[in-house]
């Protein structure tokens, strides 16, 4: 079967891309999207690891579900987080007609 390392590399790449998005984007919405990307990287990592660990002991039944469980939770939480974030971004848009985080700096220093 495919070695775990490749999955990990993939998730790492995805995670870093998400990170880059957070840093590079100026639109709040896109930033949130990039965060979702990072979370999905986490999921890949988890599930890969879980399946790998699950088959570690050959011949036995699939034993280690933790990864998948965590992934499911993460997806749920991510969804909630997304909703919350969008709500707040909406407020911002209402109040100042833009979601550009460059302009959101009333408070600094």
């Amino acid at each position, binding site marked *: 079967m495919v070695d775990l390392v490749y999955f990990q590399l993939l998730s790492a790449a995805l995670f870093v891309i998400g990170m880059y998005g957070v840093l590079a984007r100026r639109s709040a919405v896109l930033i949130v999207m990039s965060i979702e990307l990072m979370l999905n990287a986490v999921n890949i990592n988890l599930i890969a690891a879980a399946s790998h660990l699950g088959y570690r002991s050959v011949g036995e039944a699939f034993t280690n579900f933790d990864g998948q469980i965590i992934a499911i939770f993460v997806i749920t939480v991510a969804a909630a987080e997304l909703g919350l974030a969008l709500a707040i971004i909406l407020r911002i848009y209402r109040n100042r007609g833009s979601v550009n985080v460059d302009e959101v700096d009333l*408070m600094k220093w």
Partner: protein
Amino acid sequence: MPGLTANLQLLTPEFALAGLALLVLAVDLVVPQNRKNLLGWLSIAGLLGLIALSLKMLWGENETLYGGLLAVDAFSLFFKIFFLGLGIFIILSSMDYVEKNLTSRGEFYGLILFSILGMNVMAQSRELLTAYISLELLSFCLYVLAAYARNEAKSNEAGLKYIIIGAFSSAVLLYGVSMVYSTLGVTQFASISAALANPGDVSPALWVGMALILVGLGFKLAAVPFHMWAPDVYEGAPFPVTAYLAIGSKAAAFALVLRLFAEGFLPAVDQWRIVVAVMAAITMLTGNLVALAQHNIKRLMAYSSVGQVGIILTGVAALSADSILPASGVMLYLVGYSLTNMLVFAGLISFFNMTGREDISAFRGLADGQPFLAATIAIGLFSLGGMPIFAGFTVKFYLFTALASQGLLWLAGLAIFSSLISLYYYLQVIRQMYIRPVEEVAEAIAGEDVYVPTGPEVSTSPLILIVQSVTLVGVFWVGVYPAPFLTVIDAASHAILPGL
């Protein structure tokens, strides 16, 4: 699996709390707009009941549920009471503010209750996922609370920054979790420590995973360099929420950190002690130095709490398998710190209710207009600065003694030095309130005092007076005779350090 639902009754307080929160939300629908304070009273009553209930049924318990995901022990009980009490204080001191400044007041209390639930579970959880879920529960409530003043740009901005950075950091945290999981295949603290006990065959990826987890928690703690959201969020959030952030979320995060590091990472202490120590050092220096340059009282308190976090982190760095001193030190410090901060914030909130101002220069001459208010704030600030007969001094001394006992004298020295710096900006506030030019003193003597918030028409509300007086007593009590607190705290430390 057996025992998953065994002794489920031990979770009654949590279920009840959730129920209470829902109840508040439900009642909110029927309570007329002008009677919303009822909800506050309802929550307070419920919290009081919960305190009594928890003490009654959990005292001396030492059990685990769901196959070790949650622990019901002295440690979690201690923090449970801590958070419930804190909730009472926060609601008490926020009622007037909410009435004046916020819409949809019902959900406010409901959210606070939910967040308390999140904190309680955080203190109980002995497994990474559980910890994460509860942490997010807390965080979500806080995101909303921070943005609660819907029509204030500052509040929105606070919410936005908070949630973006929060989500970002939780992603990092999760990534760390996933790495730990992928290297060890376990997520329970106990198993992690078992695996760490013989670190011969673990891959360095594990350390990175732990590092990322530390980052995620560092965000909750607002430890440098993960602190930058704190001042903005503190400034933008509604005043009571700021207090709640400064006290509650930090305490909860520390509860989690303590349990995680004590029960999970302790065998690898040599790996992370220096890391945490350096983090603590940078945190307290940055926080206190930047606080020197603040003009907004909320921002000042934000940076000061960053500095305080640095000092508390030193205790985490000193955690060791052969002494409960550091753990107790951290918890005692949390008690002293929270009481003191509650005292200060109660004063600040009532001041804000009077004047609607939050710049430090607004406090000029407060001691002549509102002597008691000024005195409480001054006492609180002196206590934060670590002056004796107030809690601040005693808890600092205890914590630093713990550091010394672990040979971390340099860190203790740094911490003491940084609290010297902090004293300077606390003095700036006290100076505004008390020290006035000679000619103004003459006016004050002559009775023709120019200062605005004076006299009965503007005065501290009884609710806040309750908070102030209770916390005041607490501050003096911890400062003068902390032994009773310590007996409880030592029990808690024993719970997370079973070896002792």
